[in-house]
């Protein structure tokens, strides 16, 4: 596991042809994943003149410019949407984590009275989901339409994340919990001082799941927010890039009726991707640590 080229004695020496094929396959896969991001990035850095001269295909910008980014950050729709998305993501992730931790910890005592039925209530929701229409009607009845809360409250706890976290809590050695209890700690103190510090890795992964979910949320916003001034970045992205329209209440540089320039469109895509790219490297090492695989298996 630790030595980079540990080969068991019974395993044949890999053939040269096999190694070349494998290396090629890996190189192609890496290219297929990475290239789209690079293409978007270089288009966002090119001038409109260069984009149209090259027929829309910019592999490397001759004359890189940040003009597109200056335009979208000069205030207006994209800036507003960015603030909305960041706010919903941060507050939503916090709320989801608190609710999920509370419920997962509450359900982690194996012989707890009522624990089994409550867990089943959550588990069953993985088997079915009440479609779009009934969910919409519930959100409407609760008066959540057109509020930012409609982006958070209806998806507050994911049954999957709950089960992953609960399984992790259940596997914390009972001796640790018992000794804390003998020292006089109550259930809440045990959660805060013992259980949470032991679960940092799995908490990080689950927080990433929630944050990505909130950041990318698009359909709920479309469904519940008819007021376009409240739209998060994902919906602005759809309006600008996929529908090629300047949205209502549009900003200075884009207020002409022409569809937004390709460079600006791609800059919006980059703005939507970068936060994920920034957080991902710090959290992905926990995947490889096996936290997740263990959790999924268990």
């Amino acid at each position: 596991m630790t030595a980079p080229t540990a080969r068991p004695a019974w395993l044949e020496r890999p053939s040269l042809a096999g190694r070349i094929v494998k290396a090629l396959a890996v190189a192609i896969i890496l290219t297929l994943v990475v290239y789209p991001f690079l293409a978007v990035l270089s288009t966002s850095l090119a001038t409109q003149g260069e984009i149209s001269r090259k027929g829309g295909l910019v592999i490397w910008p001759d004359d890189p410019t940040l003009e597109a980014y200056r335009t979208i950050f000069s205030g207006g729709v994209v800036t507003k949407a960015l603030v909305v998305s960041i706010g919903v993501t941060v507050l939503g992730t916090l709320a989801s984590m608190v609710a999920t931790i509370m419920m997962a910890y509450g359900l982690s005592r194996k012989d707890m009275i009522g624990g089994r039925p409550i867990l089943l209530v959550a588990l069953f929701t993985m088997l079915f989901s009440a479609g779009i229409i009934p969910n919409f009607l519930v959100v409407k009845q609760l008066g959540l339409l057109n509020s930012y809360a409609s982006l958070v409250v209806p998806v507050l706890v994911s049954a999957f994340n709950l089960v992953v976290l609960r399984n992790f809590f259940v596997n914390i050695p009972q001796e640790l919990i018992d000794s804390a209890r003998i020292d006089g700690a109550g259930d809440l103190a045990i959660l805060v001082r013992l259980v949470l510090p032991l679960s940092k890795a799995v908490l990080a992964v689950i927080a990433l799941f929630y944050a990505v979910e909130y950041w990318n949320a698009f359909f709920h916003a479309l469904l519940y927010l008819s007021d376009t001034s409240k739209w998060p970045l994902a919906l602005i992205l759809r309006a600008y890039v996929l529908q090629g329209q300047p949205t209502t209440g549009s900003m200075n540089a884009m207020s002409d009726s022409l569809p937004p320039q390709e460079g600006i469109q791609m800059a919006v895509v980059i703005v939507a991707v970068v936060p994920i790219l920034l957080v991902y490297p710090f959290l992905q090492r926990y995947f490889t640590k096996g936290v997740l695989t263990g959790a999924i298996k268990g």
Partner: protein
Amino acid sequence: MTDVRPIEADRTAGQPAPAEPQAPPVRRRTVWQRLRRDRTMLLLTVPGLLFFLVFHYVPLLGYVVAFQSYQPFLGFTQSPWVGLANFATTFGDPAFWSATLNTLKITLLQLVFFFPAPIALALLLNSMLSSKLRRFVQSVVYLPHFIGWVIIVSISQELLGGTGVVTHLLDAVGVHNADLTNNPAFFPFLVTLQVIWKNTGWGTIIYLAALVGIDQQLYEAAAVDGANRWRRLWHVTLPGLMPVTILLLILNLGSILSVGFEQILLQRDNVGADAGEVLDTYVYFHGIVDGQWGPSAAVGLVKGLIGTALILGANKLAHVLGQEGVYRR
């Protein structure tokens, strides 16, 4: 609050707790005592429980509109009951059958092309001897899973659309003006390609875990018996992956009628409803957009029931065939 609750005595029922020399004898707790002991834990579950009830179970009640001629201003209580008329309307609608057909087409393509992809990639990753390189490749291929559909569809239109790199490449080999993003015949393939790009890497996690779980001695024994690497793959590795593969197949069966709602909603207008409508978008456009609440809820209900029935049925089948399935019997 101050007394030490004898948790450990309860946990190791039958044996005395080792830490305390004078452990109290194990006794049955009354419900009241257990409630007292567990009250903090129970209280902690309340917000989450409320969430699940309000946003997962109450909406199920909302399915009554499938049997009503629902009028939003009248509400559930005042809207007239129409029996199964909504179902009749739906099943008589050619657009519904077209959407069903499109859904099944995409599901089938995904089953054939997407489902095996993570297995193949996991085998490739697993065969890489350098764990450093493997970890690097893993972190790259996991990444697309975290990119939202709006972004993926945007990128895909940039690359495959009229001015994209793929269009240029196709042009070079003699296929001119091929805009893959608005070609109705290509649409199911386009959707499948996007799913492969997004989820293949992430899908390897569960197979890699299963591969780690295969006993290395089996490989060694097979090698000693003269099995070459292909025979070891066939006789050791693939059987080792079987339980998790069947598990994922069963779970996929449950979602056979739901194919990437957000993904398709974003692209449906590029190819028109004939090629781009699937059941979920049908429900959305007829229900929320056109206000046909009853018939759309009927579709949603049928879809949900079929999905659940398929999961339970497939699970039963897995048990009959001697596999573990999603849950044990």
